[in-house]
């Protein structure tokens, strides 16, 4: 037994330091891109999640990645993204329906993102606002946190988007038989909104952004959105 332990000791020294670190990194996640050529690589990231080094991922789509279908949300939280409006006029609620079904089937989705670079792809703020009302608001009513559309700057597209969103909500309230997503409530602490005193708010719970450039660019972008 003793000689066995002596033999084992060098092996123990090789254990990755991350095993000793029991704290789960709640910030660090994975931007998962299509990987049809080398599916064996996928396990690297879920292994890291099992160790608590990564805690969440997204894959630019609304469905959990096949490679991670059996990984629970509590280990590797999948964050769906509604890339764009499914129909040209934004009146569909397919995304809300799909996510609701995913939740009902047992995957506890807690956060979703809406619209990838709509200011670049040319989705009009008014269409996106309509789509938001039909998809984000019902999910928020179920307790899901929703991210602001992913844009290049917090004003040009976002201001009319939030204004349009607010207008739609205000119009809905004039018609008592319309669906209400509960957006008349005061925004939750830490949530953002596009409200004025008179109009109801379209709320968002977090702000997804991107940054390509040096440290200066990164800091500028974070500050730009943090203080908008």
């Amino acid at each position: 037994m003793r000689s066995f332990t002596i033999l084992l000791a060098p092996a123990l020294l090789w254990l990755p330091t991350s095993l000793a670190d029991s704290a789960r990194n709640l910030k660090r996640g994975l931007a998962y891109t299509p990987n049809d050529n080398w599916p064996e690589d996928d396990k690297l990231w879920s292994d890291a999640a099992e160790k608590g080094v990564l805690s969440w991922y997204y894959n630019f789509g609304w469905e959990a990645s096949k490679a991670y279908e059996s990984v629970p949300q509590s280990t590797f939280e999948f964050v769906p993204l509604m890339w764009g409006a499914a129909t040209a006029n934004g009146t569909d609620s397919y995304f809300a329906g799909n996510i609701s079904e995913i939740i009902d089937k047992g995957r506890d989705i807690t956060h979703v993102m809406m619209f990838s670079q709509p200011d670049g792809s040319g989705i009009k703020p008014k269409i996106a606002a309509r789509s938001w009302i039909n998809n984000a608001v019902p999910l928020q009513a179920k307790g899901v946190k929703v991210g602001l559309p992913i844009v290049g700057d917090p004003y040009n597209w976002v201001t009319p988007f939030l204004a349009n969103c607010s207008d739609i909500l205000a119009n809905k309230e004039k018609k008592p038989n319309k669906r209400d997503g509960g957006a008349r409530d005061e925004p939750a602490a830490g949530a953002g909104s596009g409200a004025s005193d008179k109009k109801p708010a379209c709320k968002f719970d977090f702000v997804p952004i991107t940054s390509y450039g040096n440290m200066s660019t990164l800091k500028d972008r974070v500050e730009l959105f943090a203080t908008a």
Partner: protein
Amino acid sequence: MPSAPRPIADEQRLIESVNSFPGVPIWLIEYGFNDQDLPTTQKFFNESLKYLEETEVVERYAWFGASRSIVLNVGPNGAMLNPYGDLTDIGSWYLGGNATGTEALPTDKPGESACTPEKPCGGSGSKNNAASLRRDGLVISLLGVAAGFFLFL
């Protein structure tokens, strides 16, 4: 992407129907310093990681580069995997480990790489340089011949 200036006429409207962002958590869902040489990329990676961990308003972040270097569209040096699927320094650091010494590509110039998206490298654990690719190929061929020989016997 730099922000465009706000039109003056919208200032008042902005104040009224404001984006009340302050305090709202930020998620940096894609970031990197694209198309730079390796030292620059690694310096940025380490500095930004520290910054993001320490900055409270940043609630989540995801480095863009969870691919093999030969298919990464922001330049190979940000890749967390080399052409064989081994973790590069950046890949290892991101997953809480130490530097691996595994290079993103055999050379810094993708055009000189022995591996291309059209002819991707397979296998794993290979030292990532042209000489060892030739050597490994030779070893594998010899082993194949030897195996064939013994099977034949």
